[in-house]
C-alpha cells in the first residue's frame, strides 16, 4: 500500500464522514465547519489525482471565499429555532438516494464515453506540468467560455448587491 492509496482512503473517509455531518447535523455552525472539512478533503483528493492547480483553487475559492459568504449570512440571520431535519422526508429520501446512486454508478462506469482518449498522458504531463496543460487549454480552446464566466461573475455581483439592499434605500434614491 503506497502513499497515494493511503491518502486516498484517509481523504475519502474523512470527506464522507464530514459530508454526513453536513447533511444531518443539528448545529448550523458545525455544519459550515464540516463543509470546510469536506472541501479541504476534496482538495486533497484532487492532489492525489495529480490535479494540483484545481486542488489549490479549491482551497482558495471554495474553502475561503464561498464559506465566508455563508458565515456572514449565518451571523445576520438569528438562530434557527425549528427542527434541523424533517422526518417526513427522511424515509422517502433513503430509497430515492439509493436508486440515484445506482444509476450514477451504472452510467459512469458502463457509459459510452470510453471511446475517446486525449493526448495528455503521463509522459506529456510530466513534461509540461499540470498547471501549464490546464492553462493552455483554458486560454486556447475554452477562451470564449472563460470570458463568459467573467461576465457571469459581474452579473452575479450586481444581482447580489441589488437583492441585498434594504427597501428604504431604494425609496431614498
Amino acid at each position: 500500500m503506497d502513499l497515494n492509496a493511503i491518502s486516498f482512503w484517509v481523504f475519502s473517509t474523512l470527506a464522507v464522514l464530514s459530508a454526513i455531518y453536513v447533511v444531518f447535523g443539528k448545529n448550523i455552525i458545525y455544519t459550515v465547519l464540516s463543509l470546510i472539512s469536506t472541501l479541504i478533503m476534496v482538495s486533497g483528493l484532487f492532489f492525489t489525482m495529480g490535479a494540483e492547480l484545481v486542488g489549490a483553487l479549491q482551497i482558495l475559492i471554495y474553502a475561503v471565499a464561498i464559506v465566508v459568504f455563508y458565515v456572514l449570512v449565518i451571523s445576520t440571520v438569528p438562530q434557527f429555532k425549528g427542527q434541523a431535519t424533517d422526518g417526513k422526508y427522511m424515509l422517502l429520501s433513503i430509497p430515492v438516494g439509493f436508486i440515484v446512486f445506482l444509476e450514477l454508478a451504472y452510467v459512469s462506469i458502463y457509459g459510452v464515453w470510453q471511446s475517446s482518449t486525449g493526448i495528455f498522458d503521463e509522459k506529456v504531463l510530466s513534461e509540461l506540468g499540470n498547471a501549464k496543460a490546464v492553462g493552455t487549454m483554458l486560454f486556447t480552446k475554452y477562451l470564449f467560455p472563460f470570458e463568459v464566466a467573467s461576465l457571469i461573475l459581474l452579473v452575479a455581483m450586481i444581482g447580489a448587491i441589488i437583492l441585498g439592499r434594504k427597501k428604504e434605500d431604494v425609496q431614498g434614491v
Partner: protein
Amino acid sequence: MSIPYEYYIVLSGLLMVLGLIGIMVRRNIITVLISTELMLNSVNIAFVAFDMKLHEVAGQVFVFFILTIAAAEAAVGLGLIMAIYRLKKDVDIEKITELKL
C-alpha cells in the same frame, strides 16, 4: 496513479447522493444551499477522475467554470435568503408556502 478511477467515481456518487438527501430533508434554507455545494463538489471529483482515466485536461477546465458558477450561485442565493428573511422574518422552508396550491 495506483487507485483505479472507479473508486473516485463511487465516492463522487456517494457525495452527490448525500447532497440530494440534504436538499430533501433539511428545513433551514441556508443548509439546503450548503447541500448544493456538496453536489457541485461531487461533480468536480468526477470530472477530475475522468480526466485521469482519459488522459485529458478538459475536465479540469470545466472544474474552473464550476468554481465560478458556485461563487455566483452562493452570492445570489444568499442575497435571496437575506431578502426572504427580511420579508418573512424566518428561514424555515415549511413556512414559505405562498406558491403552494
